[in-house]
């Protein structure tokens, strides 16, 4: 009988308590809990579509054991947009940066992470941070435009207040 491990962590601020088998992946736990923005695609860490923030850092949920996030703060795109669309999301809609939408949650997460680390990112910064997200509709150009637009708006907002 496999050992069951008691874990407690927070997802988007909500406390979660579960008993899981050690081989359960964070990706599957999150989807089971209803956070379906976290996507399975390649399962081997190449496509980035399962990216979530764990204690503020981007992590691939398909290569993370659920037992490993015990006590951690997990954030998915549902948590980022709790109080309405973020600037990144608004800009992505305006720039037509969404085609089928499968990879969109991860682009939003990585863009938010980038803007937390760099207030005025260059095009190269954006490409670097988004390089780990694969979009099979190949809609990268508009995504990059959107992130730069959101960055500009955010810095203008910060400047005017």
């Amino acid at each position, binding site marked *: 009988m496999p*050992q069951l491990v008691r874990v407690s962590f927070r997802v988007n601020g909500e406390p979660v308590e579960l008993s899981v088998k050690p*081989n359960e992946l964070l990706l*599957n736990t999150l989807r089971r809990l209803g956070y379906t923005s976290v996507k399975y695609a*390649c399962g*081997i*860490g190449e496509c980035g579509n399962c990216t979530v923030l764990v204690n503020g850092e981007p992590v*691939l949920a398909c290569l*993370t054991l659920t037992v490993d996030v015990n006590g951690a703060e997990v954030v998915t795109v549902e948590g980022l947009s709790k109080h309405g669309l973020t600037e990144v999301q608004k800009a992505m809609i305006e720039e037509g940066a969404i085609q089928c939408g499968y990879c969109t949650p991860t682009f939003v997460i990585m863009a938010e992470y980038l803007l937390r680390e760099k207030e005025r990112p260059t095009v190269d910064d954006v490409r670097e941070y988004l390089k780990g997200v694969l979009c099979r509709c190949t809609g990268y150009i508009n995504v990059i435009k959107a992130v730069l637009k959101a960055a500009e708006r955010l810095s203008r907002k910060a400047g005017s207040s």
Partner: protein
Amino acid sequence: MVEQGIPPVNVTARNTRIIPFDFDYYEPKTLREALELLDKYGESAKILAGGTDLLVKMKVRLVEPRVVINVKKIPGLRYVVEDGDYVRIGALTTLRDLEKSDLVKERLPALYDAVKVMGSVQIRNMATIGGNLCNASPAADTAPPLLVHNARVVLASIYGERVVPLEEFFVGPGRTVMKPNEMLVEILAEKASRGSSSFKKVSRVALDLAIASAAAYVEVEGGIIREARIALGSVAPKPIRARKTEELVKGLPVGSEELRKALYALEEEVSPITDVRSTAEYRRYIVKVLAWGAIESAYERVAKRAPAS
């Protein structure tokens, strides 16, 4: 039927949504505790750090440990510090930590080049340098830079520690000299002082593993290479130092035709294979170009630091 003797398959041919077997899980809080677990479970255990290599292998059943020991919660194994002529790097230091370290950028420039081009931000955020070395891929990008910085690794077990030159650490693809009860805890790399280093690789797209890679460390006086160390990745069963070519290169002017010719000796030192990423023929050809590039850019760094005399 017991699943036995199933040959390794293309990763994507398996279900990578789950880890298809159970294991016991431990989260030691001290190094001592981890080493005791390793001593107890030996070969049936695997150390989990970043998980970016191990969990992929577990998903496709390339490895099937009965016990997984997560060492990430052990404090004090994540650091980059200067110590005399060396830089000491804790095994749990992530690639992203290295990328953000000024010490690495200034004192181990080739390693800085390597981590900058390894995987995505997410992967670099998870993957540890200890894991990259212990996974012992011939394509491990941290290996050639550390080899040219004469790195040594500290292996610990409950019976004590031993220090092994990195060059002797790798045995073959996925194989090292580590015993089942040992854990890599620290890396010691010689600082670039008189010279400088650089790392170059070719891969098909941004996130790919290297088709081939080369790192070089050079000390140059008046345009003449005085000291040269060259290490290569993805062109042999393990990351290697090109010792014979190093000797041929010493005494030659940087950027010269003689140097270009001398690098042909690399063809004799490598033993590349043909696989999904490239052909042996191309690897044998391109590794010379990469070594040339690494020497050039290492030299540029030396020149920038000490303006031409």
